[in-house]
């Protein structure tokens, strides 16, 4: 019996202690009419050897394409030490630190993570993570509505250059709460938020303005002007950022005159593998004045009975297990294991390493753009300063080109026609520090063959 330790004599001794004739008698409170018939459609169990063979075959079937996809999930080198430590059973198989004294390892890692994220984003407090970047944006919008007591409108301005699936998630998660999202267009030429589109909201009751920087197209938004405009209107500013980019870019806490109010983003680039989309983690940082409106777990440093420092979950009065229907959010778990990876990853990279990674990503994206736009029928759509990603215009439908690339074992980027039909045959490409000059030459060579 896989993973069940009971011997037949254990079972009979235990049944005798209970006073039950057999195990099935323990289910005698379930009405007979409800008892499940044998589950014929479930497969028989496999041994570890059999399932290993099956999973290797499945993995083999998919192969490992050369990857030029980004769009919110980024392939980075993860130091071997990161998952060697994260996979230790003491981290991996622990639970929520409800008994703080027995969970000081997890709690201290989370506290160190909170410190690193506050530093990176230029804010005062960080929570110990949310599910992913998109759901963190949804939580930030709900938090802004709670925190901004003067605003009655629950109206949130969201540029179209915010990741389209982040926008969809924010809508889906807030759908029961009558938030109003107004999507602002991007400039046709620049690919960034057109500041003039903000003007028609001047003087109106706006709860918050969202800005993603770098935006979905990889371009830098005029964050200082947007932040100051939001604050001049009495609105809060929610920043969505890539944490790696913050090694070289001005942190949201320093945008404009007063800085952003809530900062969220996808933590995956900090030590989480691509892994088909998860588990990743969302991060959230804010100003101290809003800490009681923040969703998710917070770890605080305190003292024990002997006056020694230690860590525990704090401000739990905000949380669902105490406040029930009046909680800041229904969020119960966080992404502790991924946060552990991020804390180790950031410790191994340090400021120097993170800057090197960010600069290498930028340089490789530029090299990729140069190589691909050298091909007839490929041109760069937006010219501004960028990070990680670029939009290319092709002279034919992108879908067919991507399928052809996939046949040649290349994941060539994201077809933008679904989310941005106005862009025509547009392809979003990405090259992180993991792409070599050889990888880029291979992509350019194959793409040229397909297009000619």
């Amino acid at each position, binding site marked *: 019996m896989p993973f069940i*330790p*009971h011997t037949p004599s254990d*079972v009979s*001794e*235990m049944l005798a*202690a209970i006073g039950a004739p057999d*195990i099935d008698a*323990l289910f005698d*409170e379930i*009405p007979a009419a*409800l008892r*499940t018939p044998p589950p014929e459609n*479930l497969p028989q*169990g496999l041994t570890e050897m059999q399932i290993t063979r099956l*999973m290797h*075959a499945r*993995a083999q079937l998919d192969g490992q394409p050369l990857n030029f996809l980004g*769009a919110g999930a980024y*392939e980075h080198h993860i*130091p071997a030490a990161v998952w060697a430590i994260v996979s230790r*059973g*003491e981290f991996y198989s*622990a*639970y*929520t630190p409800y*008994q703080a004294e*027995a*969970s*000081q*390892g997890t709690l201290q890692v*989370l506290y160190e993570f909170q410190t690193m994220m506050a530093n990176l984003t230029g804010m005062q*407090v960080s929570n110990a993570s949310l599910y*992913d970047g998109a759901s963190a944006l949804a939580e930030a919008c709900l938090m802004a509505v709670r925190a901004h007591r003067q605003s009655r409108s629950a109206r949130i301005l969201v540029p179209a250059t915010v990741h389209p699936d982040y926008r969809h*998630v924010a809508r889906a998660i807030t*759908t029961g*709460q009558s938030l109003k999202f107004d999507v602002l267009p991007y400039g046709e030429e620049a690919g960034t938020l057109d500041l003039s589109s903000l003007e028609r909201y001047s003087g109106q009751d706006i709860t918050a303005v969202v800005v993603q920087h770098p935006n979905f197209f990889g371009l830098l938004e005029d*964050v200082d002007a947007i932040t100051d405009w939001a604050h001049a209107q009495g609105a809060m500013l929610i920043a969505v950022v890539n944490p790696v980019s913050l090694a*070289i870019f*001005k*942190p949201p806490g320093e945008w404009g005159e007063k800085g952003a109010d809530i900062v969220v983003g996808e933590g995956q680039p900090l030590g989480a593998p*691509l*892994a*088909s*989309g998860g*588990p990743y*983690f969302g991060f959230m940082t804010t100003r101290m004045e809003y*800490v009681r409106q923040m969703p998710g777990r917070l770890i605080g440093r305190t*003292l*024990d009975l002997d006056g020694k420092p*230690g860590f525990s979950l704090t401000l739990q009065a905000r*949380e*669902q297990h105490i*406040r029930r229907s009046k909680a800041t959010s229904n969020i119960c*778990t*966080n992404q502790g294991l991924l946060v552990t990876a991020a804390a180790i990853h*950031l*410790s*191994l990279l340090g400021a120097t*390493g993170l800057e090197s990674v960010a600069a290498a990503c930028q340089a490789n994206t530029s090299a990729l753009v140069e190589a691909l736009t050298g091909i007839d029928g490929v041109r760069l759509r937006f010219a501004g300063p960028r990070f990680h990603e670029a939009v290319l215009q092709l002279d034919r439908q992108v879908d067919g080109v991507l399928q052809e690339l996939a046949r040649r074992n290349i*994941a060539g980027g994201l077809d933008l026609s679904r989310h941005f039909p106005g862009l025509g045959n547009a392809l979003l490409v990405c090259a992180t520090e993991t792409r070599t000059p050889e990888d880029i030459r291979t992509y350019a060579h194959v793409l040229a063959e397909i297009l000619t």
Partner: protein
Amino acid sequence: MHEPLIFTYSRPGRGAPAQYPPPVPPEVPEKFRRRRRVVLPEVSELQAVRHFTRLSQLNFSIDTHFYPLGSCTMKYNPRACNELAMLPQMLGRHPLAPESLSQGFLACMHELQEMLKEVTGMQGVSLTPMAGAQGEFAGVAMIRAYHQARGDTAREEIIVPDAAHGTNPATATMCGCKVIEVRTLENGDIDIEALKQVVGPKTAGIMLTNPSTVGVFERRIQEVASLVHGAGGLLYYDGANLNAILGKVRPGDMGFDVIHMNLHKTFSTPHGGGGPGSGAVGVGRRLLPFMPVPFVEREEVSAGHAQLRYRYRWMDERDLPQTIGRLSAFMGNAGVLLRAYVYMRMLGRAGLERVAEYATLNANYLLARLQQAGFEPAYPQRRASHEFIITMKRQARELGVNAMDFAKRLLDYGFHAPTTYFPLLVPECLLIEPTETESKQELDAFVDALIAIQREAQQDAAKVKGAPYTLPVRRLDDVRAAKQLDLAYREDPG
């Protein structure tokens, strides 16, 4: 044992240069440039490895300690699940990778959906919610979408038992519903008379778990189902306790319309110190059009493809226009789902039924032993499910030693404490869940520890109240933590 913060090891100019590419100057226009360097630890690789390894050693975990946290289901996480979910192709796949290069992965996801349908008696499964609470959200959002699609817009009340997990009322509120609480009777069943009073034309649905959070099977579940359905509401199953009934009774057969499953509990994926989880949802026929996207569909492949009989593809908003939408940027916690898939395939049909059998055997055995030792069950007349409650109200009254004191002292004996003070309606309670993967020896040792602590409490209450003594820290001052907030380390400016 005390481990300093990583920042205290940091020295300017130190680093782990094997871990990053050679420097190139970044291209940052002046107005976007970061002016002050990020404060991150500057440590060598060995310093980081030692620091985090030492921190790991300050934790209790399943791999090192018995962890009988009721309602959390902390059982063994088989190593094969981890290893096979971390094959390079699985870890390296981009979430937006072409479907043609993802058929192996998608096949696993589709089979997982099918197996979950089978064990829950549901018609459709979406794997995308990233945690149990997000699964709850998806469930209640589907219930609301269902009523709204029918033009039945006055249904804004969600009924929740007073014993429910805190996430239930929080979720209902998040979905814009009003929460109506119903009482639990002395015997642990829901108060049907009270339920009759509140069910009506405003009822959107009821959120229940069965077995309930008090650790007993709701015997009148069919009556509850017909009452709520009769009034036009739907039934939501909180799958936190699915472990207890696998192969014995299916939520779909009990009348539930929607269920979330905590895959990290019932299907044994590790919880990593608080997450990740995974909250797949299953739905009955009425809610199929509203499922969250994406999920996986299978199509027969016509002759000619020797290698594959089927083609798998993502279903999204285009295929399901009434969907409640997307809950994550991509497709949820794929890595957790792969672990759950491997676990289910290893156990197979017989193994899954054994989960419920041995979890329930262990719980009832532990309860019987504790009762014989003089501890007081909260529901002495009932069968325990996979978990049960003992109440320490007598010890608190007579000895001044409460449930939390017992919990902290258990840590000194090498056992993680049970869940304390939940559910809220039982005073001084410990909610104990041994799970099926613990041996009789371990359970006996746990009983011996509680008996020893009881004896200590009678002889020297102060000793128990001062626990723990053997851990990295003594009892922590939570009031100070909340009043003098210290949420991030600041370097000494001097």
